[in-house]
């Protein structure tokens, strides 16, 4: 990071002249890549370009997609950017000579040599560099941005490299840069993923370029790479024979190959680091950094881990095939198959308590949704479990019950990823169990836990809702026009309560596909005699100027004030903020979480992709029916998004009305409460 910061002024200066001439270079590729590769907002300004790690494009990504399609073997001669590029290189030479020596050979090689002479070097450089350099467009531009941004980063001591630079393959230096870039990418993933730029494939370029091979066809090269990677992965401990098999499979099926992404990068990094070891003593540094990179949650793009998890799992899950690049770390399964499968297993599953089973099925089928409902259902199922529980001989209740609960929780997770509210409920329960005195009898401890659960549900959810309704309905004035999005039970209670108080207000229910939860809310409101307007989120900017207040529910509120809620909430909040309409978030304090999240990519839930691909009852718009299995089609049905605290005027919780900056205070207080309850 600091290296990056240090590099700030240089790329700015250097890129001004370089980028302004072709501000919007049209991609020269005629093939259509996956939607996410072409759709992301391109880095507009060179400055931001050089700053944000996301902007570093994955050179390989395109080559991957293009490989399937017939592709000109000789790289396209790039007419426009190369002169700029060369000028850029020269400018670099003028400005800081020592740096040039290290990386510029590549630059000049790529830029100046005609395509014919380039191909040998291109084969060394692998798909990544040369193709990136060739394919032009924004692609190229951001590629150089990567160079520019990574170039002056002082940690890769270029001065020492410089002496050997002539002897070495120029691309190696390049690789080092690329790899470290990638490391940075990983460590600041949260930041990086703020913009959906495809980047997973990137590190493959460096590793591929390591092989000093004569000319190979693209397919051959790739196969080689894959096998090497598989071998690496196999020796890498965890996977064993299984992962070799997995990666063989990977080598054959192209689309599947894309699944192994970030986690698999680790071996590559090791490879390239090893290769570049002589270039300085920063190998250990790299390792350190790798160790530092945390992997707290299950990353579903990690093939071997997913396989392991699958063997353990009760629910039979088929992974969806075409997953969107940026969201591969999240689980996505083929919907429809799980439920029937699980139902058929009902009588075979002895370890699962029927109450748990029932609730799990309800999660899976979507019969129970909403943070509160899910949490209450889960806790009540646990209550039943605890009532039916008897400690096995030779075991203590505390430990055994905690283990049991954990296994149930993992079952729930397989049915549907846990919500934050459930996570907090589980934490509370485990805490209670752990805090049980060893001396008390089993029946006493059971009844104590059950009453604790009851109290939690009552105090933290039911009463909390009532308090929130009291607070929030004070804010509803006569003549107000309240805009609500989706269907949040607290918001509904607020509206009905205010209506019951005789306040004169009107409600705009904003809804969105595919769930259309707003319709149910709309119905309940209309039946009660509330004036309502119903619209879809597409029209939110149109209806927003009528609104005087926006009431939104939340799945969770994070420590930095970010509101994690149903997808679309951020959009509504931003529009409201732009119209200067106050945004009021209603959320019980038990849903607050001490985590900090900057975007909605790191942690999210993927819904059924078919839900957005198909429109039930509308045969005329189901254009995707026959192409739904195409590799070029990736459907993204996100369930949640993160609303930055800037767009939130107020959070109404059971502790009163607080600004989003005070969430950590509540979290602090609440945690203390947790122990007290």
């Amino acid at each position, binding site marked *: 990071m600091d290296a990056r910061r240090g590099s700030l002024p240089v790329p700015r200066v250097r890129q001004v002249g370089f980028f302004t001439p072709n501000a919007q270079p049209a991609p020269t590729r005629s093939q259509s890549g996956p939607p996410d590769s072409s759709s992301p907002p391109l880095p507009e300004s060179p400055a931001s370009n050089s700053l944000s790690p996301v902007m570093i494009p994955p050179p390989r990504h395109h080559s991957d997609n293009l490989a399937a399609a017939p592709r000109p073997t000789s790289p396209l001669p790039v007419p426009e950017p190369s002169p700029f590029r060369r000028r850029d290189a020269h400018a670099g030479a003028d400005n800081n000579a020592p740096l040039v020596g290290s990386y510029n050979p590549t630059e000049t090689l790529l830029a100046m040599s005609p395509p014919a002479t380039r191909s040998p070097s291109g084969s060394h450089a692998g798909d990544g560099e040369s193709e990136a350099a060739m394919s032009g467009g924004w692609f190229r531009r951001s590629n150089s941005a990567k160079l520019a941004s990574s170039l002056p980063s002082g940690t890769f001591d270029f001065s020492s490299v410089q002496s050997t630079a002539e002897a070495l393959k120029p691309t190696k230096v390049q690789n080092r840069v690329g790899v470290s870039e990638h490391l940075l990418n990983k460590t600041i993933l949260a930041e990086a993923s703020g913009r959906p730029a495809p980047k997973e494939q990137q590190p493959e370029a460096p590793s591929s370029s390591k092989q000093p091979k004569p000319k190979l066809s693209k397919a051959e090269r790739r196969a080689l790479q894959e096998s090497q990677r598989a071998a690496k992965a196999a020796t890498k401990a965890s996977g064993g024979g299984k992962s070799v098999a997995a990666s063989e499979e990977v080598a054959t099926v192209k689309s599947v190959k894309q699944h192994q992404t970030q986690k698999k990068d680790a071996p590559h990094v090791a490879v390239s680091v090893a290769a570049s070891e002589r270039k300085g003593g920063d190998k250990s540094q790299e390792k350190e950094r790798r160790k530092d990179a945390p992997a707290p949650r299950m990353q579903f793009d990690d093939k071997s881990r997913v396989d392991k998890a699958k063997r353990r799992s009760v629910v039979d899950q088929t992974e969806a095939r075409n997953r969107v690049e940026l969201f591969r770390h999240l689980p996505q399964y083929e919907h429809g198959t799980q439920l029937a499968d699980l139902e058929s297993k009902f009588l075979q599953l002895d370890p699962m308590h029927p109450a748990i089973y029932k609730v799990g099925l309800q999660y899976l089928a979507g019969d129970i949704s909403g943070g509160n409902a899910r949490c209450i259902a889960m806790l009540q199922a646990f209550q039943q479990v605890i009532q039916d529980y008897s400690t096995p001989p030779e075991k203590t209740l505390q430990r055994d019950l905690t283990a049991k609960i954990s296994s149930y929780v993992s079952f729930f997770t397989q049915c549907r990823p846990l919500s934050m509210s459930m996570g907090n409920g589980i934490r509370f329960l485990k805490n209670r169990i752990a805090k049980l005195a060893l001396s008390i009898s089993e029946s006493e401890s059971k009844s104590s836990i059950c009453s604790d659960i009851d109290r939690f549900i009552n105090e933290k959810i039911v009463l909390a809702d009532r308090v929130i309704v009291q607070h929030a309905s004070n804010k509803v004035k006569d003549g107000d026009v309240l805009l609500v999005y989706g269907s949040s039970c607290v918001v509904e209670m607020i509206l009905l309560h205010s209506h019951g108080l005789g306040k004169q207000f009107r409600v705009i229910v904003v809804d969105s596909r595919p769930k259309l939860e707003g319709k149910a809310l709309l119905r309940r409101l209309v039946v009660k005699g509330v004036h309502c307007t119903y619209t879809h989120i597409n029209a939110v900017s149109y209806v927003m100027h009528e609104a005087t207040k926006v009431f939104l529910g939340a799945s969770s509120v994070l420590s930095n004030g970010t509101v994690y809620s149903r997808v679309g909430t951020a959009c509504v909040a931003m529009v409201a903020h732009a119209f200067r309409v106050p945004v009021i978030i209603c959320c019980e304090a038990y849903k607050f979480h001490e985590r900090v999240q900057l975007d909605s990519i790191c942690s999210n839930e993927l819904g059924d992709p078919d839900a957005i691909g198909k429109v039930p009852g509308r045969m005329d718009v189901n254009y995707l029916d026959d192409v739904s299995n195409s590799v070029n089609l990736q459907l993204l049905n996100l369930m949640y998004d993160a609303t930055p605290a800037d767009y939130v005027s*107020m959070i109404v919780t059971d*502790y009163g009305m607080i600004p989003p900056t005070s969430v950590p205070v509540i979290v602090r207080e609440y945690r203390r409460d947790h122990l007290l309850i």
Partner: protein
Amino acid sequence: MKEQTTRAMWWRSPSFILDNRQQQPNDTARGDALSIPLSSPLPPSTTMADPNPNPNPNPLTDKISAYYQTRAAHHGVVSSDWLAQAQAAVGHLPEADDDASNNDQGAPSGKPFSVIDEFNNWRKQPDLAEAVAAIRALAAVIRNSQATTMMELEIELKKASDSLKSWDTTSISLTAGCDLFMRYVTRTSALEYEDFNSAKTRLIERAEKFGEISYKARKIIAMLSQDFIFDGCTILVHGFSRVVLEVLKTAAQSKKLFRVFCTEGRPDRTGLRLSNELAKLDVPVKLLIDSAVAYSMDEVDMVFVGADGVVESGGIINMMGTYQIALVAHSMNKPVYVAAESYKFARLYPLDQKDMGPALRPIEFGVPIPSKVEVETSARDYTPPQYLTLLFTDLGVLTPSVVSDELIQLYL
């Protein structure tokens, strides 16, 4: 009224213009129909319409909120000699009254102790903020209480604070001061396990301590803010705030060289009074009309304002015009400092300007206003926290977001 709100509810909506036009007769009919049952239970809308919810029985100044009456009484005649006189006059008055009331309490036949009277006594002291007067009055309630149990005492205290609060509902600092007093004084674990008398003395101690803290708050703030006033700086002040005056006075006394721009502070021209005070301290002062703020903002190094109340979001409610000054200062990257005692921290959360209890004040235009012309008589506005830089309070120099932190810790 009801008719109006119904209309207001709909009128922003273009999608309903058509409906409205079609249903014009229907709509009005319905509005009327609605108004009958709804206005009967006295919904909040009627309080909105009611210009003077305060029970202060003064038919002549019906339009002025009691808070501003007090302020007018205090500031209208602020001159140092008068001040000295008044101080001397009231200096022993409260004590006398205290004794009297004590005596009264002692003799059950005498007139009962009234917290409002006590409060009014304290309130006459011009240098004493309303909230501090209330705090002192509440302390006197404890002292004079004849309750024999803790619960009784607490109920008595609660009643007294409620009656004080309802004396002037528009004053934020009064309400907040009473609430804070209740929290601070009664929320002590030392009250348990003790016999009533020692608990009572403890309560009185705490009450007096709180009164002392509140009284000294201004001095503390003045000390804290000295670091921010540097030689050669230009300070823009708005309205008359005793805290800000104290800050500037302290700075002048410590031989700091600075210049002050005073806004005029229409309609009650509080800025003139402040400039008067400052001129006496030999501080170079320039008077601006309220509309010249943006014009002179480029010369200004910092903006200093007081506050009627500090709300939970960290924003402030202050004299009309503060918001626009803060906006101008924010857009020109000038720091906006707020000097406010911590007893002004209120558990309010206005979402926008209109989301507050109204405090009205007559405005003189010098010429008769046609009866058809409406006049905005609201006396204060709300400045959101994002336009404030720092708050100088007796708790320390705080960023706006800490206000909520403090409030949560105090009230939870």
